[in-house]
């Protein structure tokens, strides 16, 4: 009964005209950035973060969340029609989606992608409603050692899953921790690594960092590429999948949903990993594995379902523990803090209207996305015809002005440019930006938790191993470091699998 009351409260918040408007705006922008290659949800969220300062925290989070799951929907369009993933979580959709389009089945591919996303998104929200409240009670038992260990585990999982070279991913995480220490020390108030630049007293801004590493670097990388885009000019027809399509896809959608949801919850997991893993599993369980890569509809349905349910699952650690599980959630954490809302176990008690309002808005947003994606596919295709030579200067300008408008500071613009060059070089050297950003966001929290725990234990590290939750997290984290050293495991490590899939 409590659940129904809470949902009723949530819908009463989400259906307010202002919140409905922001939800619509969020999913529209999300779909747009999902469709357009080069501008992902992270850059879009960081860009629009300042725009939310004038509105309520609920409307702000509703819009930013809408951008995230909206981008998951939109990303599939470019994957299917152009063979270019609009954002990273849609990479796997290219493999079979584009092949379906080449065989004249672009309509059913886009249709199953939209319906699969809707089903997965809706079930993911249901999972969020069921899991978040009990997890809050559990999280109330957390102290500094547990928070520290959980954050370490999150970083380990991310580095373990996302890259072939775990050492280099860990290096990037360490660099993120270093960058996170720039600015005033949380405990003593002493300035660290500010080089007498007043703008650095508050630390390096998340927005310039993210826009540089993800936005500008992508543009610089694309300047050297000559990508020929082949867009289907034939009229799209038959967006509704046939009964046979449904029969082949429904279990893939459900498997992708469950898998994506739990990978989304995992600190360090997220939509990208979920889509890769679900595709690999589908190919393994399929009766026709030879059709994968040649236009199997399951190869579109499963990763699209997985990335959407992962997007919902990722909200759980943020809303219950106050720990972002990926870069996008780190952006939302920043937005909540700016609005004076502290995410964590007390959020549900202190701001129930925000928690349930955002959850209910996801249902509304999913319905809006279904309505947006199917009838408006023609419009999104037209957008894809914008030449890169026009698109890139516009993206660059978005990033520059987005960085400037937060503090009206050209220093932030300069920081963003420097981060852009660093991000470009990192991409050249196959260094992952995601562990850097997550460590950068978690760094100050991790430092505070570590120092508080050590002060409490009078300098003894045993405190991290004598408390069961903390010990479990650290043991798993240590296992994740040791496992890649085992030769038999090296070949089977998910990161290596992802890389092989990517190469294929």
């Amino acid at each position, binding site marked *: 009964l409590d659940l129904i009351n809470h949902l009723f409260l949530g819908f009463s918040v989400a259906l307010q005209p202002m919140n409905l408007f922001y939800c619509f705006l969020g999913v529209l922008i999300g779909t747009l950035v999902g469709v357009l290659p080069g501008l992902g949800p992270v850059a879009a969220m960081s860009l629009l973060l300042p*725009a939310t300062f004038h509105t309520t925290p609920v409307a702000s989070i509703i819009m930013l969340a809408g951008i995230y799951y909206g981008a998951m929907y939109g990303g599939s369009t470019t994957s299917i029609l152009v063979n270019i993933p609009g954002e990273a979580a849609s990479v796997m959709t290219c493999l079979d989606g584009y092949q379906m389009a080449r065989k004249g089945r672009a309509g059913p591919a886009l249709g199953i992608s939209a319906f699969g996303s809707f089903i997965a998104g809706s079930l993911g929200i249901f999972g969020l409603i069921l899991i978040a409240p009990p997890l809050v009670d559990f999280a109330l038992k957390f102290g500094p050692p547990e928070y520290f260990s959980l954050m370490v585990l999150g970083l380990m999982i991310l580095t373990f899953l996302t890259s072939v070279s775990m050492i280099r991913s860990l290096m990037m995480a360490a660099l993120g921790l270093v960058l996170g220490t720039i600015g005033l020390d949380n405990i*003593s108030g*002493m300035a660290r690594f500010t080089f007498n630049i007043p703008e650095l007293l508050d630390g390096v801004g998340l927005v310039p960092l993210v826009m540089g590493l993800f936005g500008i670097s992508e543009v610089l990388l694309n300047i*050297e590429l000559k990508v020929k885009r082949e867009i289907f000019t034939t009229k799209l027809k038959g967006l509704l999948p046939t009964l046979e399509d449904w029969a082949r896809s429904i279990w893939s959608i459900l498997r992708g949903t469950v898998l994506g949801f739990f990978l989304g919850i995992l600190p360090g997991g997220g939509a990208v990993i979920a889509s890769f893993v679900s595709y690999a599993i589908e190919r393994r369980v399929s009766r026709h594995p030879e059709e994968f890569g040649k236009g199997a509809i399951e190869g579109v349905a499963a990763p699209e379902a997985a990335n959407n349910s992962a997007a919902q699952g990722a909200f759980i650690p943020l809303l219950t523990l106050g720990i972002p599980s990926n870069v996008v959630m780190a952006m939302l954490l920043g937005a909540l803090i700016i609005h004076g809302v502290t995410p964590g176990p007390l959020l549900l008690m202190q701001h129930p209207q925000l928690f349930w309002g955002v959850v209910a808005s996801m249902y509304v947003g999913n319905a809006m996305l279904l309505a947006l994606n199917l009838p408006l596919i023609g419009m999104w295709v037209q957008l894809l015809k914008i030449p*890169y030579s026009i698109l890139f200067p516009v993206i660059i300008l978005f990033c520059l002005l987005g960085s400037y408008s937060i503090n009206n500071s*050209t220093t932030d613009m300069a920081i963003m440019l420097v981060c852009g060059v660093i991000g470009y070089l990192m991409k*050249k*050297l196959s260094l992952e930006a995601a562990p850097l950003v997550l460590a950068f966001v978690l*760094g100050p929290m991790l430092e505070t938790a*570590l120092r508080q725990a050590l002060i409490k234990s009078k300098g003894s590290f045993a405190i991290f191993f004598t408390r069961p939750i903390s010990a479990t997290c650290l043991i798993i984290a240590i296992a994740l470091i040791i496992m890649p050293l085992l030769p038999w495991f090296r070949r089977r490590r998910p990161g290596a699998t992802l890389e092989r899939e990517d190469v294929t």
Partner: protein
Amino acid sequence: VKKTFLINDLIWIGISVLVCYGGLKLGFGSFHQPRPGFMPFLSGLILGLLALIDLISGLINHWPTEKRDREIWANINWPKLILTLGLLSLYTFLFSTIGFVTGTVLLLLFLFRAMEPRPWWVVITAAMITTAFFYLGFKVGLDSQLPKGFLGL
């Protein structure tokens, strides 16, 4: 030896030494009373150790999974890349002085032309429309304090 990765690891080791030194200058404290330099020192140390491991394993195995130097640095359109970065740096540096409208129109003129040669009238129209679009979005929509510059625009 793949020089790019060798240099990369050496750079990270150098950075880690600087960070550790900075951490010690800030004050490491002790484990039961950590001071502001505690975390920077530890993070710098971890960064350095990881870079050292990568360097040693790379020198032994020659970075087997990585691309060759030629593959990494080939196909880069250096003039375009340097021109783009130069323009962006100049725009950032002069943004407050020349103002949003003038600076943005000039930046876009050069970027649109640099990306792909087009007739000037197309480039000028596109630059003007894009600037107006951004002005409406950021100045009118988001109420950003965009600089007017010496021309007062």
